[in-house]
């Protein structure tokens, strides 16, 4: 009959449709549905009728298959919830472990992504580079205006080149005077970046000409807070540092260049005499021409810079200067980059620990339920059905854990973000976006399926009739034991690695915190009054202000001293000046550099810097009196070692023409940073400078030593300043101790983050070890009982359990320590001189691991000791 091949075709057709249904349903009803279809197929004769039949069948399957899936899912979820309610501790542990693993990974990844990978918010950001001068000794140096001009006009690799520089100013007008961070920019800068204004326009080359009217572009934040987001602000004028400027544009909120705190941009308007080579203060951004590589640009820029340096330098060695071209995305300190990789590695280690723990937990659960599964199999439940059910259960647990993990990550990303200094023009707090969420989802699914499916399959393999036998030992094979042992070794190894890494960072932090900065911070509060020009150009005028403020502040009850200085240690790092000594003009450039500050009398006493010899600067050191100087001990050690410096002469070059006489010697302080060498220090009386000269060295930091809490002192200081000059803002009010703490803040965050990772890893490992040993003991209860019955000592039973734990831990410690040696070497840039093989740290990590092993083994060991031989043997 012709129906036979047709029937075969129909069979294949219905077979495909049946694939839409869950396997368990197909096994159960597939044959019936197939038979029913076959019967109707035979009953229809025409092609049209059969086509209708097929369409009906497709519609039927498409409608019902999802409903069957849904039915099963609902059933499994209900079942899983019931199982979880029966053993809440286990379910909770699985969720917690998943949450920690996923949370840590997501947070670390989002931060790394944000800092290392995310494109900068400019047009074609991959074509943006920064150009630095490269001093002969290495490192990098800002560019001088003449360098900027050369690169802009003569290097063909660049489409455009722009310059910028930090510039702060006082904004005066309606409301309180305000100190704002801003930036001076060359006319090309906005074009180089490829950004446009929110309203109005950006700064353009025409604004940058000397003769052009003074303009300013403001930030969206300033526009909102100061100008009520009024679009009519365009064309109005503002007063910045006594200069009247026309507002020509507002930049969008996303434009955070060069830093997040910038509120305005003004054109440089370089004067003709500004185009020199010896005044490096500009940062340079350039846009490569399409198709030009960074290497090509580097070669061309270097060649030009070195040629010019040779031409203008009288040094027979040729040019001292070269140039370096760095991708804008790569403008990140090596330490920050290292830290990010470290963070990623740490979170990876944590994820491995979490996943192995998860696998171990699920394996335990699977084994514990072997009897239940065997029973269900015996009652006719299909393997597919049981597998699916276990998978649903694991996915549910992992899903809850994953959601908790993402919440955890969202909560901790801001803390992690503080690890990375805000050197890049991107917002400080990374967001958690779709890509990250899908990554978290993938990790969750992978850990649930990878670490849930394998145990489930293994369990099902063992779920045979044998498991049902009374007294059966649950079928824990030797291989399962070995796998679990290896998982514990991996966990111990990873946690030793994290312990050593965080221990090394902690030692580095302690070492840095113990560094003596050379000054005392107790009770010292600082505030900034940056005086505007040209109002305060004359020394006498600004000293009226200083004298009035200092006099009133010193008169406050509880204040013991107060002074003004150019810049605070750790905050103003530069201000390097060159000196020459009579008869020693051949001093190399490096040897001649000192760190210069102008101070008012009382600065050393206020800061607790000891006066070693001679006297402090005095009110009597004026423009008309003998030029004097106070120098640091390191200054003496360098230029007059072993001699009495008082009364000796030297010359400060540049704008400070003429000789100075040393009248005092004070202790060294660390100007640059706790962890860097500082140049010898030179302090000059604030009155001994020509009017209008060295105005960026003008004292602006007020330091006050008092016994008052800052909360009551600061309002008094503000009132005093307002009385001295109502238009003068007070900014950057802080305790000196906070300045110092700021130095170690990144290290403290490092230690806290990595320490938290290590603590979590440690805890998870203890849980894993405990779980394994506890299971081990329960599996061997019969053996232990028999041994006890045969007269074994309790002590030897204890030894059996502890031995296993210690053996696993020892293997883990060896592996972890070996990895830690490698990691320590990689971390070396962050270690502040602490040896990567620091014995104390390694000993502490190993000791902690041993303690953890003992703690993890204790409960199972006690349980082993409680085994009642009679009970066990009777159960046989």
């Amino acid at each position: 009959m012709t129906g036979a091949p047709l029937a075969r075709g129909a069979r294949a057709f219905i077979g495909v449709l049946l694939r839409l249904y869950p396997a368990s349903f197909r096994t159960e009803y597939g044959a019936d549905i197939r038979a029913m279809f076959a019967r109707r197929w035979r009953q229809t004769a025409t092609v049209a009728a059969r086509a209708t039949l097929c369409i009906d069948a497709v519609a039927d399957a498409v409608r019902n298959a999802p409903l069957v899936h849904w039915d099963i899912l609902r059933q499994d979820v209900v079942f899983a919830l019931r199982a979880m309610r029966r053993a809440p501790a286990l379910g909770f542990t699985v969720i917690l472990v998943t949450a920690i693993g996923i949370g840590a990974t997501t947070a670390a990844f989002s931060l790394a992504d944000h800092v290392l990978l995310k494109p900068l918010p400019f047009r074609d950001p991959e074509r943006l580079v920064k150009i630095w001068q490269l001093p002969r000794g290495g490192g990098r140096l800002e560019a001088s205006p003449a360098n900027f001009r050369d690169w802009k006009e003569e290097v063909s690799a660049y489409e455009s080149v722009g310059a910028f520089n930090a510039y702060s100013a006082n904004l005066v007008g309606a409301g309180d005077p305000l100190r704002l961070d801003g930036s001076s920019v060359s006319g090309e800068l906005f074009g180089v970046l490829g950004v446009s204004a929110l309203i109005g326009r950006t700064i353009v080359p025409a604004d940058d000409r000397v003769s052009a009217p003074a303009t300013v572009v403001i930030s969206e934040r300033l526009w909102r807070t100061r100008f009520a987001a009024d679009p009519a602000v365009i064309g109005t004028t503002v007063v910045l540092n006594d200069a009247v400027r026309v507002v020509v544009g507002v930049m969008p909120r996303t434009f955070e260049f060069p830093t997040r705190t910038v509120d305005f941009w003004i054109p440089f308007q370089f004067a003709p005499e500004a185009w020199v080579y010896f005044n490096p203060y500009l940062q340079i951004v350039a846009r490569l021409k399409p198709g030009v590589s960074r290497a090509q640009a580097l070669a061309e820029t270097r060649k030009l810079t070195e040629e010019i340096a040779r031409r203008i330098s009288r040094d027979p060695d040729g040019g001292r200067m070269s140039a370096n071209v760095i991708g804008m995305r790569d403008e990140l300190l090596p330490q920050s980059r290292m830290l990010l990789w470290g963070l990623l590695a740490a979170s990876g280690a944590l994820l491995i620990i979490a996943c192995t723990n998860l696998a171990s937990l699920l394996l335990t659960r699977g084994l514990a339920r072997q009897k239940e599964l065997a029973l269900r199999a015996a009652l006719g439940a299909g393997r597919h059905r049981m597998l699916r059910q276990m998978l649903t259960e694991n996915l549910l647990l992992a899903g809850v854990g994953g959601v908790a993990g993402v919440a955890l990550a969202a909560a901790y990303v801001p803390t992690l973000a503080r690890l990375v200094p805000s050197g890049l023009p991107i917002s400080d707090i990374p967001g958690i976006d779709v890509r990250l969420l899908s990554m978290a989802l993938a990790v969750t699914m992978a850990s649930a399926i990878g670490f849930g499916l394998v145990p489930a399959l293994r369990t099902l393999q063992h779920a045979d009739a044998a498991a049902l036998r009374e007294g059966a030992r649950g079928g824990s094979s030797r291989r399962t034991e070995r796998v679990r042992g290896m998982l514990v070794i991996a966990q111990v190894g990873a946690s030793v690695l994290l312990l050593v890494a965080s221990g090394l960072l902690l030692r580095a932090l302690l070492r840095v915190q113990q560094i003596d900065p050379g000054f005392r911070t107790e009770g010292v509060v600082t505030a900034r009054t940056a005086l505007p020009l040209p109002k305060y150009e004359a020394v006498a005028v600004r000293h009226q202000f200083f004298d009035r403020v200092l006099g009133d502040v010193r008169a406050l009850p509880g204040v013991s001293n107060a002074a003004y200085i150019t810049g605070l240690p750790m905050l103003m790092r530069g201000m390097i000046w060159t000196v020459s000594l009579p008869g020693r003009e051949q001093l190399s450039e490096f040897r001649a550099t000192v760190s210069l500050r102008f101070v008012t009398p009382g600065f050393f006493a206020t800061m607790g810097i000891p006066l070693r010899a001679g006297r402090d600067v005095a009110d009597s050191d004026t423009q008309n009196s003998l030029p004097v100087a106070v120098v640091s001990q390191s200054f003496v050690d360098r230029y007059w070692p072993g001699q009495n410096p008082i009364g000796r002469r030297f010359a400060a070059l540049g704008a400070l023409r003429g000789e100075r006489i040393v009248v005092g010697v004070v202790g060294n302080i660390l100007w640059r940073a706790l962890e860097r060498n500082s140049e010898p220090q030179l302090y000059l009386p604030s009155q001994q400078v020509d009017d209008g000269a060295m105005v960026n060295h003008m004292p602006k930091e007020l330091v006050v030593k008092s016994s008052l809490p800052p909360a009551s002192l600061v309002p008094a200081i503000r009132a005093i300043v307002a009385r001295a000059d109502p238009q003068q803002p007070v900014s950057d009010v802080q305790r000196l101790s906070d300045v110092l703490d700021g130095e170690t803040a990144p290290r403290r965050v490092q230690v806290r983050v990595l320490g938290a990772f290590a603590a979590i890893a440690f805890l998870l490992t203890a849980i894993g070890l405990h779980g394994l040993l506890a299971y081990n003991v329960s599996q061997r209860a019969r053996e232990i009982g028999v041994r006890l019955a045969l007269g074994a000592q309790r002590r030897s039973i204890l030894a059996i359990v502890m031995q296993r734990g210690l053996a696993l831990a020892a293997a883990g410690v060896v592996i972890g320590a070996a990895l830690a040696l490698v990691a320590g070497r990689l971390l070396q840039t962050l270690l502040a001189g602490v040896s990567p093989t620091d014995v104390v740290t390694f000993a502490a990590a190993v000791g902690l691991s041993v303690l953890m092993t003992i703690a993890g083994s204790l409960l199972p060991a006690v349980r082993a000791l409680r085994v009642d031989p009679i009970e066990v043997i009777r159960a046989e």
Partner: protein
Amino acid sequence: MAGDPDVDDLLPLPPATFHILMALADEDRHGYAIIQEIAARTDGALRLSAGTLYRSIQRMIDQDLIIEVHERPAPEEDDERRRYYRITRFGTAVARAEAKRLQALVRLARLSGFVPRSAS
């Protein structure tokens, strides 16, 4: 059993479920027979698809409304594998409760004038 909260939990019944229970009221039937019986009872107005039938059956077994009986009545004209389903006591109780619920509903509809008098 009427007051059993389990019974009320299942109400109202999906129409397919109620029809299957009615088809099994007097005798055990296999799947195809259930479809035919329902078609006959409704004068061909309702013809369950295979998917709907077995999805309902799977759920009804889980809910203890019906059981699968493995005994086979005398084979008819073909050799298909036949699985027979039987209504349980619980299934009967649920069907009764559903009928009662529908009755009460019809009574309400009649009071609203939605049911023509001749139909009673």
